[in-house]
């Protein structure tokens, strides 16, 4: 059983769902740390996830599950990788040479093929229930892998494109685990001290705010009220970590290696953040939604993905970080095997692929299969919940661990999910 022991259930059962949510997130604070948790606490800040989010839905046929020569295969060929027997699309030549680091799942059947709910599902591993908003993977990772007193953000989301831009949600875990969301620039907004304030004035002013807010907070103990004070508690740490976003601090040759595209720069930021102890970084690359000109879109975007992810894997490996960092490619769904009159592929969630590299992953593995034209999963069908269970297991997190939300035990990965052991190290 999880750490949601009887005493906690008893403690929380009287609370309403709304308040209970925050309490669930803050239980360590409420009850103090048990010995095994303390040991876990010391290891915190050492495991990381970089989620390369292919927003709009990348085509599995042009990436991990090519079907060259078939009616649906499109114009691209398949190429051999450095793992015997595994082929990927010719658009990923560099990743093909790093196949030994990566496990591919070709058998996702997630059913939902509209952007909004598809993204909800793939970010959270399940859809919200009425009255219960689930946290996304980033928030769960922040909660499970981050240090409570961390001076760095624990969930960073880089999402500078507009398509399907989503901030991410910490759901019932509350604002403490909400993402630091970078939408406009590659530096966190409002993270620098104002020119007319000294650092001492800034800190004194914050202390004054805390003092004057204390009584109100004591008399209004809701999670929402609490979230305001929590947010102000983190301001100093967030300001201190702003330099992590400045890639000018990297040597020129490192920057050159990642290349000139924004995706490359963001991958470099992700590596810097991970190196500094940030548990979860999401780099979203949008405009994979290729209803028209699918092949040209993938020519353009796969070149970017292939190069940047390859450099990222190499860089993490050279720094000894890859064994502690799980790199994921995932989007809200894949794309139809059928090709439309605009030479596009449309939304498709019935048989598509994702990749897992690095921490906890058995590299050089392909799990699951689709039929000759890619219409259906023929082997190893996996749901969003199964994928989440797999990811959590790779990170050494028990996916059956339960949070208490009000009186409702809620497992980290949805009820009935099963980790895909074949891709786990």
């Amino acid at each position, binding site marked *: 059983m999880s750490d949601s022991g009887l005493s906690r259930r008893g403690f929380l059962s*009287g*609370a*309403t*769902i*709304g*308040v209970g*949510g*925050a309490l669930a997130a803050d239980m360590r604070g409420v009850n103090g740390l048990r010995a095994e948790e303390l040991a876990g606490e010391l290891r915190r800040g050492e495991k990381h996830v970089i989620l390369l989010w292919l927003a709009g839905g990348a085509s599995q046929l042009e990436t991990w599950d090519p079907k060259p020569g078939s009616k649906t295969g499109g114009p691209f060929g398949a190429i051999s990788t450095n793992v015997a027997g595994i082929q990927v699309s010719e658009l990923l030549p560099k990743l093909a040479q790093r196949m030994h680091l990566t496990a591919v799942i070709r058998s996702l059947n997630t059913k939902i093929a*509209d952007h909004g709910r598809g993204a909800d599902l793939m970010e959270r591993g399940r859809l919200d229930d*009425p*009255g219960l*908003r689930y946290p996304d993977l980033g928030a769960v990772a922040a909660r499970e892998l981050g240090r409570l007193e961390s001076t760095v*953000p624990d969930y960073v989301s880089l999402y500078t494109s507009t398509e399907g831009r989503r901030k991410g949600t*910490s*759901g*019932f875990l*509350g*604002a*403490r685990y*909400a993402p*630091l*969301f970078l939408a406009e620039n590659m530096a*966190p*907004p*409002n*993270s*620098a*001290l*104002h020119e*007319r*304030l000294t650092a001492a*004035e*800034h800190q*004194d*002013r*914050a202390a*004054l*705010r805390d*003092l*004057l*807010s204390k009584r*109100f*907070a*004591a*008399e*209004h*103990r*809701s*999670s*929402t*009220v609490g*979230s*305001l*004070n929590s*947010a*102000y508690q*983190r*301001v100093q740490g*967030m*300001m201190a970590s702003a330099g992590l976003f400045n890639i000018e601090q990297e040597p020129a040759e490192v920057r050159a290696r990642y290349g000139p595209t924004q995706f490359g720069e963001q991958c470099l930021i992700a590596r810097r953040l991970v190196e500094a102890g940030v548990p979860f970084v999401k780099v979203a690359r949008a405009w994979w939604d290729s209803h028209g000109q699918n092949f040209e879109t993938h020519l353009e975007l796969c070149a970017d993905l292939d190069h940047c992810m390859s450099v990222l894997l190499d860089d993490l490996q050279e720094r000894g970080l890859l064994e502690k960092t799980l790199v994921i490619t995932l989007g809200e769904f894949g794309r139809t095997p059928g090709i439309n009159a605009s030479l596009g592929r449309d939304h498709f969630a019935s048989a598509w692929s994702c990749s897992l590299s690095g921490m906890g992953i058995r590299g050089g593995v392909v799990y699951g299969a689709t039929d000759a034209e890619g219409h259906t999963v023929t082997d190893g069908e996996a749901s969003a919940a199964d994928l989440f269970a797999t990811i959590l297991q790779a990170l050494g997190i028990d996916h059956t661990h339960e949070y208490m939300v009000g009186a409702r035990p809620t497992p980290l990965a949805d009820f009935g999910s099963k980790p895909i052991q074949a891709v786990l190290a």
Partner: protein
Amino acid sequence: MNSDASAHLRSCVSAAAGGLVPRHRFSGLLIGLLLAAALLLFPCSQPAIAQSPTELPLELQIDASIDQQNSTAGVPAVEQADADTLLRRTTLDLAGRIPTAKERDWYLALPAQTRQQLLVDRLLQLPDFDFHLRNSLDELLLPERPNDGEFREYLLTAVRERRPWSRMFREMLMASSVDGPDKGAAQFLKSRVRELDDLTNDTAVLFFGVNISCAKCHDHPLVSDWKQDHYYGMQAFFQRTFSSKKNVLLENPLGSVRFKTTAGEDRDAKFMFLTGAVVADATPTLTDEEKKAIEEQVRRLEREDDAQPITVSFSPRQALIETALADQQLYLARNIVNRTWARLLGTGFVDPPDQMHSGNPASHPQLLSDLAADFVQHDYDLRRLIRGIVLSRTYARSSRWTSEAAPPAAQTFAVAAARPLTPRQLAASLQIAVRSSDSWPSVEETLAKPDDWLKRRTDIENQAGAWMREFEQPAADFQIAVDEALFFSNSDRVQSDLLRDGGDRLVGALRSAETPELAAAELWRVVCGREPSAEEIEVVRGWLARAPERRVSDMQSLVWALLAGAEFRFNH
């Protein structure tokens, strides 16, 4: 509690007898009824409550129902909020902003028994009310487009003219005005016209309180009320809606929704409302040639600016409107009553508000039904509903909870909720809070020169529009993100605009205050709408004693500390 209740009732009765409630036609008979109702508040008279409370003022119906249920369940209610808190709460809820210090002076000078009613009736007359109700409806109906000018203009016009909700519903779903201020009514549909599922589900969620999206692929797994027939039945009302090249919403005389049932059977959807009521398609039978001509005309309308407009003999959307307005289960009314209650009390009778179905019963089903029936009887008058709610003792409860025990559940409404301000409420309140108490007109001046106030309030509204983007719209279990704290802590907009020094600015007033005590009083009156406590005065003394020369930056820090504080951030 019961003595409180009867005292409140007596005060209402005497106020009514004294003619202080001009909006109601009170008769001797009604007073008798009121007194009878006071007796009903005692638990022993429970069974009588549900029988015929409809002639009572809404606020008494509300309190009777809430108190009775809590009394039965043994839930203790907290005391009434103090005058300052209630003024701030009511002003935020009706005017969309905090009160000015001048308004507070006026309010505190009123007789305690009647001032809430006088306040409410004053606020209902102010342009502030129209702005705020407009904003609330805008946030509800077009959440993805917070600055749709046409839609906002329409809502403001409708609210100013006190149009019934039923009429607004009709205008938004008919979308027939192509010119003038009502043109924007079409934005509800236009913004969703590209996605039939959005038209279908958003209409069901926002106007009827029903989320039937799970019934799209299969009969709803958890809610026996909702079948695929309901989802596609609702969709059928919108399936023929399309947007012309000139961006006018039209209906195609042809078209039907066909869906596959979970049993694999192909089925044509009927025009079916949530209640199961079905409307027949009154479109005359057309020949294949006529159909072809219509298809061609629709195609031209979608592609060409100068295409001939199309007319329909049967409008599915109009059928939906008529069906909804004739609905005896009052989905339309119950939804807006529940949502209005949730907006003013923090939680709806039905929560979440889009889960109005048998599996998720209302906390106070009879009260919800009574309020909905009253709403319909009084021509869907939102003002009457809002007025009734904010005059209730339930609304006026304190939000403070100091006991070690867990607070009562939200749906008991035994403790007021601390509700985060909406982005527009927060932005408008900031505009009030950064100016000195003297910079605002008195209530008397506002009454004498309503146009001046309208102009001033319009300025605030416009400024708020430019600030609101910095804040997030609250949702269920809302959490304030570190982004907002960073914005308040470090942005130039806060430092250079909100904290600006100057004659009419709060920072300027604090700088010229002669003593720390006077500075503290001005600061708390303006920002928090109350007097500072002794401890708070002490904090100010200590703060200013660090550098006795009254530096601007010290005053700015004081103002900042309260603006960024929890008390200001919430409606409590």
